[in-house]
């Protein structure tokens, strides 16, 4: 009898402890208390594109606006968007198409700042189509060929399709293969794909091998907006002051980075392993301080054209 009672007691204790575990997740929120800086977690990807936010943090553009910026690197937008929406991060970095797709699926995201843009020079951009086969002379020759993209149905394949179409090819007849940027060079070398779309620093490595560039972000739009910083609609509504300060700090960081490429190249080694000659020679993106609404609209239209979106995105709701 005592044994049974003991067993029941243990059962109850176990259930109670499990329940305690379940409810103990604290609802952390970066609500400001006067005087102490707001701790702001921002999800970024450790790539060249986010150099301005690292530089801006170093220069004190965030701390002088009472923001204690905590940069957390994630492996991609797939990890950043849910973490921002759930409030684990206050802000995040994502490419434009991912944000358009998120909005079309009613994910509550709100853009707060520009991210990065094409250099505007098709010969020297930070993301481009690279080929090895001398028979592929221009983008329209990619019809019927295998092209590597980092993610299917996203910004890279949309870019490639548009370049092929502008060159007179049928974009529907380009075959895309999903590969991570770091693996693309090896795949092209081995002949597993016919063309790759790579970004820096892999673009510099591909050019160094003597491979040819046959199209780049700039061919879609000289001002093509590649990525943006965003928050959740919840934070945008509950703490507009914090969002305003973050946006201002980002504007200052972007403008500073755009004007000081040498400092950008130096800051790269603080969060990536891009060092030495690569850091000195790779092509940096453009970092305009303001969002180019026309460029974002164009990407939204292309997303509709190529079937990523079923309806034209409502940019007035997404953009600030």
């Amino acid at each position, binding site marked *: 009898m005592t044994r049974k009672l003991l067993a029941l007691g243990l059962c109850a204790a176990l259930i109670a402890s499990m329940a305690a575990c379940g409810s103990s997740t604290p609802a952390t929120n970066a609500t400001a208390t006067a005087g102490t800086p707001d701790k702001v977690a921002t999800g970024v990807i450790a790539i060249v594109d986010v150099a301005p936010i690292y530089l801006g943090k170093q220069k004190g553009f965030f701390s002088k606006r009472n923001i204690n910026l905590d940069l957390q690197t994630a492996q991609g937008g797939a990890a950043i968007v849910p973490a921002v929406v759930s409030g684990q991060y206050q802000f995040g970095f994502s490419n434009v198409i991912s944000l358009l797709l998120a909005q079309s699926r009613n994910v509550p995201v709100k853009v707060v700042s520009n991210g990065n843009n094409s250099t505007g020079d098709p010969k020297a951009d930070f993301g481009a189509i690279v080929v090895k086969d001398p028979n592929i002379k221009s983008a329209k020759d990619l019809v019927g060929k295998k092209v590597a993209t980092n993610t299917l149905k996203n910004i890279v394949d949309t870019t490639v399709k548009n370049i092929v179409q502008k060159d007179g090819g049928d974009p529907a007849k380009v075959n895309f293969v999903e590969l991570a940027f770091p693996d693309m060079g090896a795949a092209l070398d081995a002949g597993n794909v016919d063309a790759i779309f790579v970004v820096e*620093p892999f673009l510099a490595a591909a050019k160094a091998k003597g491979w040819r560039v046959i199209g780049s972000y700039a061919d879609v739009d000289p001002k093509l907006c590649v990525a943006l910083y965003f928050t959740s609609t919840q934070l945008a509504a509950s703490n507009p002051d914090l969002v305003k300060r973050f946006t201002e700090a980002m504007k200052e960081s972007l403008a500073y980075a755009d004007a000081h490429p040498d400092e950008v190249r130096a800051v790269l080694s603080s969060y990536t392993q891009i*060092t030495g000659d690569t850091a000195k020679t790779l092509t940096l993106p453009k970092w305009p301080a303001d969002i180019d609404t026309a460029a974002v609209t164009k990407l939204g239209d292309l997303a509709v054209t190529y079937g990523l979106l079923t309806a034209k995105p409502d940019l007035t709701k997404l953009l600030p």
Partner: protein
Amino acid sequence: MTQAVPKSGAGAASPVLLGLIGLVGFAALFEVLPRIGVLPADYFPTTSAIAAHGLALVRQSAFWVSFGQTVGTWALGLAISVVGGLVLGVIIGAVPLLRAATSSTIEFLRPIPSVALIPLVIVLLGTKMSSTLVLVVYASFWPVLVQVLYGVADVDPIARETALSFRLGPLDRVRYLIWPTTLPYAVTGIRLAASVALILTITGELVIGSPGLGHDIQTAYSSNAVPLMYALVVVTGLIGVAANLVTRMTERRILRWHPSVRGEVPV
């Protein structure tokens, strides 16, 4: 006895020697293959290039910070699993009612691969160390728990009856009856958990991006720093070897009284 008994002298020395020859041969092979162009040198750096990057790495304080984060996550996760597995295992195993009530739940939860929880922990905890820790604990808890359960079930019925007739209390029964039988099982569980925990620590850092060596591997990978990436991979391998050695040594010490370690035939 006509069975061949291995000569003790040669038998003890040659495995170590052979092991070393194997390692050196492996290293030499991967020095030569990229050099003669069988493997593309851009993606398979030579052993010497990897070693050079490894040596440069250990002189950087940032490397030791990551090293500490990885080993810390691993050790903390393992400790939580071991303590949790031992305590819950002994309690559940000792109470038949509890055991019957939980076995189906355990068999349901245990096969869920820890990495399948990655989206969940990102939403709940973001990409901090705690996310990886959850994965580590989830994966390494089950081997400990299940081994302890087996151990508790293996208690000799006669010893159990004896303990009952001597009216040993619950705590004394755990101490003198369950514990000695369970310990060898638990130690096996802990050894399994140690390697599982390391795998999940690196996986979590690599996939989620929480700080540590796995994250550094990902950063090197996405920065086209190929030899550095291989050097970091080698370091994680060395941690695995070290972890295995430590757990095996501890196993021998804890179980030095046990027939399986003493090497004597039990009567």
